[in-house]
C-alpha cells in the first residue's frame, strides 16, 4: 500500500504551522549569526540540519522572502545605527 509521506506541505493558514516555520527559521538564522554569515546558503555545510528543518517547515516563497529580508536588514543596519 502507499507510503505515507513524512514531509507535508506547511499550511500557511494554520497558526501552529506558522509558528513552527518561524521557530525553525529563527534556529537557522541563529546558527548563521553564530557563523557570522549574512547570506543564507553561503555558510557551506555548517548549519545543514537547521537549514533542512527550516526549508521543510516553511513554504518556498516564505524561505525566499525571509532570506531576502535578512540580507536587507543587514544592509540597513549601518544606516539605522547612524540615525
Amino acid at each position: 500500500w502507499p507510503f505515507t509521506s513524512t514531509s507535508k506541505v506547511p499550511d500557511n493558514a494554520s497558526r501552529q504551522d506558522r509558528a513552527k516555520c518561524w521557530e525553525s527559521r529563527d534556529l537557522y538564522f541563529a546558527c548563521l549569526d553564530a557563523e557570522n554569515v549574512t547570506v543564507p546558503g553561503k555558510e557551506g555545510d555548517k548549519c545543514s540540519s537547521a537549514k533542512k528543518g527550516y526549508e521543510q517547515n516553511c513554504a518556498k516563497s516564505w524561505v525566499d522572502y525571509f532570506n531576502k529580508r535578512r540580507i536587507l536588514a543587514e544592509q540597513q543596519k549601518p544606516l539605522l545605527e547612524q540615525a
Partner: protein
Amino acid sequence: MQTVTTLRLALRGPPSARCAPRRFSWRWPRTPATPRPTRRGYATSSADEPPPEKPRVTFEDKYKNKSVVGVFTPVSALLFVGVGAALYFYFDWEKQRLQKQREEERLSRSYGRPTVGGPFELTTHDGRPFSDKDLLGKWSLIYFGFTNCPDICPEELDKMTEAVDILDKEFGPLVQPIFITVDPARDTPAQLARYVADFHPRMVGLRGDYAASKAVCRAYRVYFSTPPGTQPGDDYLVDHSIYFYFMDPDGKFVDAFGKASAVPDVVERVRKEFAAWKEERGGLT
C-alpha cells in the same frame, strides 16, 4: 539793534574779511570769539608767526552722546531688542495655537476626510453575501491581506484582535473585525474560514472574484500585486499595502492604522472617535 546788525552783515559779508576782527564770532551759539592774530602784517617775523591753532571744539563734540553706537542710543537699542523678543514670542504662541486648532479640526468629524471606502460586493467565509451595506450600523476594522502571508498579516491581525478584545470589554461588541483577501485564487472560503478562526471569534473573512477584489482594493486605495492568471497550487507572495481601516457606522472612513501603530494607539483613537460620535449622535452606533 540786533536785526539791523544781522541784516547789514548779511548784505556785506563777514566782517573779518574786510576789517579788524569783531568781538563776537558769527557761529551759533554766540560765544566770545577766541582772539585771533591778525594776518595783515607787512612783514612776517618769527615772533609774529601765528601760534598753532588750538583744536577746534565742534558742535558735535560738545553735544554728542558718547554711548551711541551707529544710530542706536542705549534706550532705543533696548526698546528694539525688547520689541523684537516680544514679537518673536507672540508669533511662536500664535503658531502653536493655530497648529493645535488645525489638529483639532482634522480630528473633528465635520472637517474633510479622504475618500477611502466605497461600494463592494463580496462573500464571507461562511458563504453569505457581504456588501458595503453590511458595514452600516456597526464600527469596522478592515484589513487587507492573504492567508499565505509570511508574518506581517498575522502580526497585524493579532494586533487588531487584541484591540477589538480590549474594546469589547469596555464597550461591548461594537467593532467588527474584517479580513478581505487580495488573493482570491488561493483563498477559498474554507481556507479563509480556517485562517480567521485563529484570530478574533467575530472576525469575518471576505473574498470575491478577481474583479471584485480589484474593485474593493481600488475603493480602499489598497495596492496589491497578484497577477490575474495565478493558480491555486502556485507558491507566491502578494505584495500589498499594510493598513487596516477604521470605518464608522455610516460606512465612512475614519482613520488608517499601519505597522507603526501599536494596540494602545488603536484603542485610544477608537475611544476618541466613540466619544465624538456619542456627542454628536447621542448613541454609539
